[in-house]
């Protein structure tokens, strides 16, 4: 049980780090063009230098929603981490990590909303480039989606030893 808890803690930290990387790096979609490879993310469009991401007016609200929910997922995963450490020391034996699990599941919801909106709206075509494919940040976000769900459920199920 203790080994499982330690394993979940490691997975949780990995999720937090991956969320940070995924939100901050601008490699959600990658495409090739005449000037080389272009990568776009949530914030910037990068070639050799980075400029502001061009977004059509109908997609503007969706992009803002994705940005907001990715930041929210980071906030909630960090809060869940701190809550877990607090509960590790203050919870009585045999009790479950309800608060941590609940916050982790809220984080899961936020990631779900963010990546769904992004997948629906922004993965069709990419500006200025041909052959767009998904970058590593997109993959990391989906991995975090799975990890956060697993850790959330496990926190709700495990008992403190």
């Amino acid at each position, binding site marked *: 049980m203790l080994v499982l808890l330690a394993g979940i803690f490691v997975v949780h930290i990995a999720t937090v780090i991956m969320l940070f990387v995924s939100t901050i790096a601008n490699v959600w979609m990658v495409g090739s063009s005449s000037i080389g490879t272009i990568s776009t993310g949530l914030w910037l469009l990068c070639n050799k230098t980075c400029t502001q991401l061009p977004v059509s007016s109908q997609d503007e*609200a969706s992009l*803002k*929603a994705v*940005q*907001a*929910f990715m*930041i*929210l997922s980071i*906030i909630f995963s960090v809060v869940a981490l701190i809550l877990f450490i607090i509960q590790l020391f203050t919870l009585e034996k045999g009790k479950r990590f309800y608060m941590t699990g609940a916050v982790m599941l*809220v984080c899961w919801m*936020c990631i779900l909303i963010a990546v769904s909106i992004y997948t629906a709206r922004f993965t069709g075509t990419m500006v200025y480039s041909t052959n767009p494919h998904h970058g590593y940040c997109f993959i990391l976000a989906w991995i975090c989606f799975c990890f956060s769900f697993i850790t959330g459920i496990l926190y709700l199920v495990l008992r403190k030893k």
Partner: protein
Amino acid sequence: LPGLHILAITLALEVSVGKTNTVMALNNSNVLLPCTFTTCIGFQDLVFTWYFNSTELIYHGKIKNKATEPTLIWHNPRVEFVGSTTKKDNNISIVLNGVEFSDAGKYTCHVKNPKERNAQHNATIFLTVVHKMVETDNTVTLIIVGVVGGLIGLLILFMLIKRVVLFIIKKTQDGKKECLVSSSGNDNTENGLAGSKAEQKAPPKA
């Protein structure tokens, strides 16, 4: 010692343009280009100049000492001096009147202090001229604050409801217990009390 000598020069006279070095101005307005300087050992016959794009001189002034205001040597007719060196900080800011799109670029505030062995320092401001001022968009912040606030509210509501429900359950159970205790008569009220206490402990665990 050459090291100390260089250190003295770099720290003694300093020119600063404030927290940010970019200024945005509306077309056809007057824009303030801020600049202040600080000296370690005071100044005498200090010369300050403002340059546009490093080559074009737009203001040239001289200050005798801390007690006097600067005197003008030459200025571009559209540039006005609005600083003051007699107050606590040495302000040598200028105002550029009637800003046009061609005025966008680099403005350098340069200061030379003969009292500090002709120490010099400068600072640059980047001016951009826009058609109209755009308000910064804060939808992302609003969404984040809304969701976090909503969740905290839900959490507080959930805790309150849980307490109220537990309180109500305790009250109804208390009511039943009182009936039982009083009907059993006067024997050993301590047992009765202890018994009801044990019963009360059960619901919170469940």
